[in-house]
């Protein structure tokens, strides 16, 4: 079937009374951004639905992208035909034929915006339904819970037929839930946590700690590429790269081995909080999950969280690794996450980190380094790049290689 338009139904936002306008505007903007590579699309966000006119762009690719945008309940591809009953009937029969499986039931559901059209909804239901029955042998009409509902909408500019409903990502449009900073390492967890934060409408800035030569440029490229994947679900993301080498060397030199990891984490959180404040964002997200590694015990979280009063949100806190991996696969970050590059979390891990660090000791050991100066230096040294949906960084020669392949 050659679809001409995709109709997008809004999700939860329909229930939010006075914020509705903002939600619709934001969703429209997000949809535009996530579909920006399809040049010929026309996108109109109306009060009850959003319409994407394909103008020849591939329907499956557009639907796939749309079904990942938060705030969308579901989408229906539809065929636009002229206001001619014969054409409407033929198209309806062709659509039903394409989906037909033995024993299938259907009904026609006509809506009429154009009240000057020569037939009313009941007449249209009868005529189109009758024609389908005649042309698709074995199909049955059923009014209550049919397998397929064929919607016929008579609008001023044409007639739109649709029968498929493809589930959307749900959630809230990214940007309607405020802005926060995400601590992105490059592992499996943080992209999943980012995805879940965005699902509740939060717009994220990524903070990534970079420590060459202890961490490689590949690890940095991987974190950026992951950001590109996550951006598929909410549009462009600011990627903030923090120089961390000096702090790691200071800590390694001055802090007792058992507390290396705790102090390093405290410094990371301090810097992230400073960045978040400077950017007027309202919280910090992390990919921590309770009990997964030494730094993710409750004791550890308390010892680390001590450095800021800003809310630290952990969407994965009680998820099992298997559940996290499932989402990572769904959002297409898993394959990237498991690429074996050293990141800042693995390289300075002491052989036996304290799984139950003591808060007072953490505070005292931290006095061994010049915290304020180090934080200031790191924050002053940040580099920010804007990352687009699906932007790639790992393989700079992709185009050259494409010639070979």
């Amino acid at each position: 079937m050659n679809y001409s338009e995709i109709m997008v139904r809004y999700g939860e936002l329909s229930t939010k009374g006075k914020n509705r306008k903002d939600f619709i505007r934001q969703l429209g903007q997000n949809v535009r951004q996530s579909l920006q590579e399809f040049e010929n699309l026309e996108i109109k966000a109306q009060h009850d639905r959003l319409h994407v006119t394909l103008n020849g762009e591939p329907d499956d690719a557009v639907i796939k992208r749309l079904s990942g945008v938060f705030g969308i309940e579901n989408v229906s591809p539809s065929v636009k035909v002229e206001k001619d009953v014969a054409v409407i009937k033929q198209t309806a029969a062709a659509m039903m034929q394409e989906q037909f499986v033995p024993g299938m039931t259907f009904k026609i559901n006509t809506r009429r915006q154009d009240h000057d059209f020569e037939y009313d909804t009941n007449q249209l239901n009868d005529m189109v339904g009758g024609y389908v029955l005649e042309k698709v042998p074995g199909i049955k009409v059923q009014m209550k819970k049919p397998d397929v509902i064929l919607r016929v909408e008579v609008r001023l500019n044409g007639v739109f037929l649709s029968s498929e409903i493809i589930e959307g990502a749900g959630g809230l449009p990214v940007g309607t839930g405020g802005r926060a900073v995400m601590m992105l390492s490059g592992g499996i967890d943080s992209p999943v946590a980012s995805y879940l934060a965005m699902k509740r409408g939060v717009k994220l800035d990524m903070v990534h700690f970079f420590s060459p030569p202890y961490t490689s440029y590949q690890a940095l490229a991987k974190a950026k590429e992951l950001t590109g994947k996550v951006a598929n679900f909410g549009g462009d993301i600011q990627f903030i790269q923090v120089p961390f080498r000096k702090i790691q060397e200071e800590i390694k030199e001055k802090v007792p081995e058992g507390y290396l990891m705790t102090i390093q984490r405290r410094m990371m959180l301090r810097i992230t909080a400073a960045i978040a404040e400077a950017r007027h964002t309202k919280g910090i997200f992390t990919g921590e999950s309770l009990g997964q590694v030494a730094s993710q015990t409750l004791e550890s979280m308390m010892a680390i969280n001590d450095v800021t009063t800003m809310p630290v949100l952990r969407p994965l806190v009680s998820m099992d690794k298997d559940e996290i991996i499932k989402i990572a696969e769904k959002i297409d970050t898993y394959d990237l996450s498991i690429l074996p590059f050293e990141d800042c979390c693995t390289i300075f891990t002491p052989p036996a980190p304290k799984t139950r660090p003591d808060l007072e000791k953490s505070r005292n050991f931290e006095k061994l380094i010049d915290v304020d100066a180090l934080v200031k230096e790191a924050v002053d040294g940040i580099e920010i790049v804007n990352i687009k949906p699906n932007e790639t960084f790992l393989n700079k020669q992709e185009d050259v290689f494409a010639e070979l392949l």
Partner: protein
Amino acid sequence: MIYFDNSATTMADPEVISTYDAVSKQIWGNPSSLHNFGEQAFNLLEQSRQQIADLLGVSLSEILFTSGGTEGDNWILKGTALEKRQFGNHLITTAVEHPAIHNSMEQLKDLGFEVTYLPVDEHGRINVADLKAALRPTTILVSVMAVNNEIGTIQPLKEVGDLLKDYPKVHFHVDAVQGIGKGISDLIFNDRVDFITFSGHKFHAPRGTGFIYAKRGKRIAPLLSGGGQERNLRSGTENVPAIAAMAKGLRLLLTDEDKKVAQQRAIRDHILDHVKNYPLVTLFSEENESFAPHILCFAIRGVRGETIVHAFEEQGIFISTTSACSSKKHMASSTLSAMRIPEAISTSAIRVSLDEHNTMAEADEFNAAFDKLYDQFKKLSNETAK
């Protein structure tokens, strides 16, 4: 020369060779090296993997590189046996598989595994009812080829897959070495299949290349242990030039697949329609969609297959007895004997196998040569026409 032995191997495509050449000269680093030069090779390796995954509509991590069909078959069978041995010791396959499957199964049998070989009907096709009856609580693997390499039968993979939906823990393997690029990818990539074997040199890629598809979450033990390449599942420094060349070969193969398939089918049918009228000819391949488009197997009764092959060779036409693997050993075709074709006939069988570069003019030439040779064969044949 006319090359009609494409199921044995295909000519490497010049464009494929130019990729092999360029990569060998320019991007010869080890993908596992940390430095930039190695990283380049790593990126090319992964981009090749991505291209193959995209062409087949699967995920990057589901493609694992091998040295070819034989390794893929060995790996999936033995790797499953090793991985799942605490869950069961029973494997099922068909009586018409390639020796890479059959002999791997026999080796596993010697180690204490139990193997069921499903019988085939007169078309070389298994019956799903037989499979159902053969399944046991201890069954760990079912391996069914997509296209028979000797006569071209397409196995009922969809029905097998549907049946195995009730046995979700059984590994379902498809040997698709003869099936890729032949218009049946929906059948091969059915919604139940767990593992698929592919071989590069059957689609104009260099020898010693191949890959398997392994569905995400389905595990097999490695056979080659070592440096941990291919996700620790198949060690050995990656053959990047050949892999890149194979990725290109697959792209070229699948471009305009429908057109190429239709052309091969038309040529195959043109020869089939010609030879079927001769009284000494017994056809094994059939002129319908349940047979692959590129394979034609028939016997000229009373004349040994080798004799026919050499006679065509003198006319500049290369064909084979039923399969390249068995032809030099003077064995009767295993597929034909599984179809209960008497040995007197199956030793007279020959196979014509096409690719997308063969032409109708070649088919005409073959038919003309056939007519000429048939007159000689008629005198040679110790059988009277029936």
